């Protein structure tokens, strides 16, 4: 049967709407959706905030999907760096703005990518949605629960796409782990997950202001230091729970197909008593229905464990590490051999042949060869960002649901915002039940 592009879009949209409520089909949606805008050329998008994270997204922006028309940032030095990223990615020049409001007023845009400090997410997202723009907003969704809910309500009312930037949703390793292992029941019953993000550094940025007389106070940052290190101040940031844990709680919500009901927390500023306001060590246990728990820890004093998510099941253990590797260990193996892990790695096809055949290689040598270089790992992570931005652009064209819309993202946000309070009080707090289920 021959279908016009519009009919294809409608059919795909209807199909995906029909399956949108079926969580296990989320991955299918991604695979079938992210095939490029079906008509009309690249989506005209603007960037608000082109600091480190914004530039990662910019680097993952495919010119076939998105035409970056303009960029706004209150720091002109960031705009200059973003220009270089655009050029490297084969994009044309984008118009610069210091004020995002001016940008969305003057430019004919369809979509906005927001990668500003957390405290601005709600204000900017709502203004963009109200202006008729689709929005891809970096995680965490918002600084507070009320902000998350206003964003969700505005997206619903305006009918615009709102996607929150949890790139693990677009990462093929996670999709394979969910579809091929968790959903397939390979792990058995999972009662415990461990979420760890350990680093050994002070999380403090250093750098000069773009000009000697640069004054960010009109944007709410009393000094250059407040802007540069916004993550360390409570007014702008929710600390490590927002910046790190929310990614991982998003994964445990996804794999558990549930949201936590309560959180027990402790932590503090134990190492870097340098005037910062957010904790440098945090331990939080998220309690899910059915006696399941996700135990999160983040420390700024030791990087041995790096970052990973582990799901411990009655039949097996799944380890997802560094956003690029997955390992499966069988539980109760009869022989030591059977206890050996099965690993899953992801590798860009562009990286070389499917197989480099030679005379037999020993296990360790072959493992190194196939795991690839550090560059390969970076490519994998970038692929997830690329899929995220491309998926957003496709959604703008088709109106189809996305992998991490507000209903999904709000669950992780509410859990982590509640955890901030639990950690501050070193106590157990209930998490608003059914946050994502409200409709």
């Amino acid at each position: 049967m021959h279908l016009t592009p519009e009919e294809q879009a409608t059919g795909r949209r209807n199909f995906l709407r029909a399956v949108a409520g079926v969580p296990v089909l989320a991955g299918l949606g991604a695979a079938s959706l992210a095939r490029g805008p079906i008509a009309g050329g690249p989506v005209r998008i603007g960037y608000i905030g082109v600091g480190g994270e914004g530039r990662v997204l910019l680097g993952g922006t495919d010119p076939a999907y998105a035409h970056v028309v303009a960029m706004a940032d209150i720091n002109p030095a960031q705009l200059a760096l973003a220009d270089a990223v655009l050029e490297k990615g084969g994009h044309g020049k984008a118009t610069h703005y210091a004020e995002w409001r001016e940008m969305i007023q003057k430019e004919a845009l369809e979509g906005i990518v927001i990668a500003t400090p957390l405290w601005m997410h709600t204000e900017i997202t709502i203004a963009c949605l109200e202006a008729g723009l689709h929005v891809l907003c970096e995680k965490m969704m918002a600084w507070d629960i009320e902000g998350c809910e206003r964003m969700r309500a505005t997206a619903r009312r305006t009918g615009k796409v709102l996607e929150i930037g949890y790139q693990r949703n677009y990462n093929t390793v996670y999709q394979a782990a969910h579809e091929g292992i968790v959903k397939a029941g390979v792990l058995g019953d999972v009662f415990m997950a461990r979420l760890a993000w350990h680093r050994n550094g002070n999380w403090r940025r250093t750098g000069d202001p773009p000009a000697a007389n640069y004054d960010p106070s009109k944007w709410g940052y009393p000094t250059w230091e407040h802007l540069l290190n916004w993550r360390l101040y409570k007014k702008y940031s929710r600390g490590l729970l927002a910046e790190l844990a929310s990614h991982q709680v998003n994964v445990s919500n996804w794999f558990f197909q549930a949201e936590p009901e309560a959180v027990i927390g402790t932590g503090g500023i134990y190492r870097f008593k340098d005037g910062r306001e957010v904790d440098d060590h945090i331990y939080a246990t998220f309690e899910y229905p059915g006696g399941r728990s996700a135990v999160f820890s983040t420390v700024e004093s030791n990087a041995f464990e790096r970052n990973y998510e582990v799901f411990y099941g009655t039949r097996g253990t799944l380890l997802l590490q560094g956003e690029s590797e997955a390992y499966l260990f069988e539980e109760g193996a009869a022989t030591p051999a059977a206890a050996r892990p099965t690993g899953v790695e992801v590798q860009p096809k562009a990286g070389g042949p499917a197989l480099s055949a030679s005379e037999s290689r020993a296990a360790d040598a072959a493992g190194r060869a196939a795991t690839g270089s550090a560059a390969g790992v970076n490519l994998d992570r970038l692929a997830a960002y690329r899929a995220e931005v491309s998926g957003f652009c496709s959604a703008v064209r088709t109106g189809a649901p996305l992998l991490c819309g507000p209903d999904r993202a709000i669950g992780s946000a509410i859990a982590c915002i509640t955890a901030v309070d639990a950690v501050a009080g070193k106590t157990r707090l209930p998490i608003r039940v059914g946050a994502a289920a409200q409709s």
Partner: protein
Amino acid sequence: MLVDRRTLLTRGPTPPRTSSPAADVWLRVHRAAMACRFEVLLSGEDRRHTAAAHDALREADRLDAAWSIYRDDSAVSILNRDAADAPVRVEAELFALLARAADLWRRTDGAFDVTTTPLSRCWGFVAREGRVPADTEIEAARAVAGLHHLTLDAAARTVHFRVRGVELNLGAIGKGAAVDAIAARLARRGVRHALVSAAGSSARAIGGRDGGFAVDVTSPLVDRPLARLRLRGGALGTSGIGVQSIVRDGRRFGHVIDPRTGWPATGVVSATVIAADAATADALSTAMLIGGPALAERYCAAHPDTLVILTTEDRRTVRFGASRAALVEALCT
């Protein structure tokens, strides 16, 4: 000024339809067995088969337990211990593999042989300390090497060594056979496209999108790929002299012994064979390393649908025969 959707949908060029981002990545599901890495390669869009791949890779563990000479309780170790005393009954799977090994031994004029361990030992390759043995040592080892010392009784499914000292070692065919077993299990689970491999030296393609899986043939002795080919629905085996070798009087001796002379094979540094199944390709690659261009030519003439790629000591790469399963895209001559 904002533009409504209708305007947008009707203006401007349509960007190229690209495949989904999932299709841009390989998933490598892997497991260590037989002292090497077994791998099932899936394209990202086939990620739902991850569990099937995990399940199928258990075949490698099972066959390792049955065939390893490094385990006292393996079926092969039991044969090596008892089969000179009296015929020993074995499982059908092992009997079939030994029968296949014997058949390939005949078809390769004795170049492929699973009983060369005594020769490897006298050359020091078992202990990984290569040395040139005395002629008397080589003759003693040759006396107990050779599949003609084996009696395979298909009716009774027994194996008997007619002389004491015979040692079976499935190293040159077992990985390929395990790759076949994994591929068979995947196919039963409905997998239509996957590349199963072991140690980088043995591989079998189930299907293969876009003309097949791209495979580079490489050698640790040569710093560029020897050949690039596309594999679709067939199997590949590669052998080489590179990793383990000794140099004597300026001459390099690889660790693969020619059972017919008792001396290491020379003349070919890398041999790759494309055949219908991985056990055959695995075994033939060793045979071609030993038998060289003469055997390759003879074998390919007698066995259509077999492709052999040899790189000789002077670093020239030549091909013999052809296979429907493989398209040779480049040959480094």
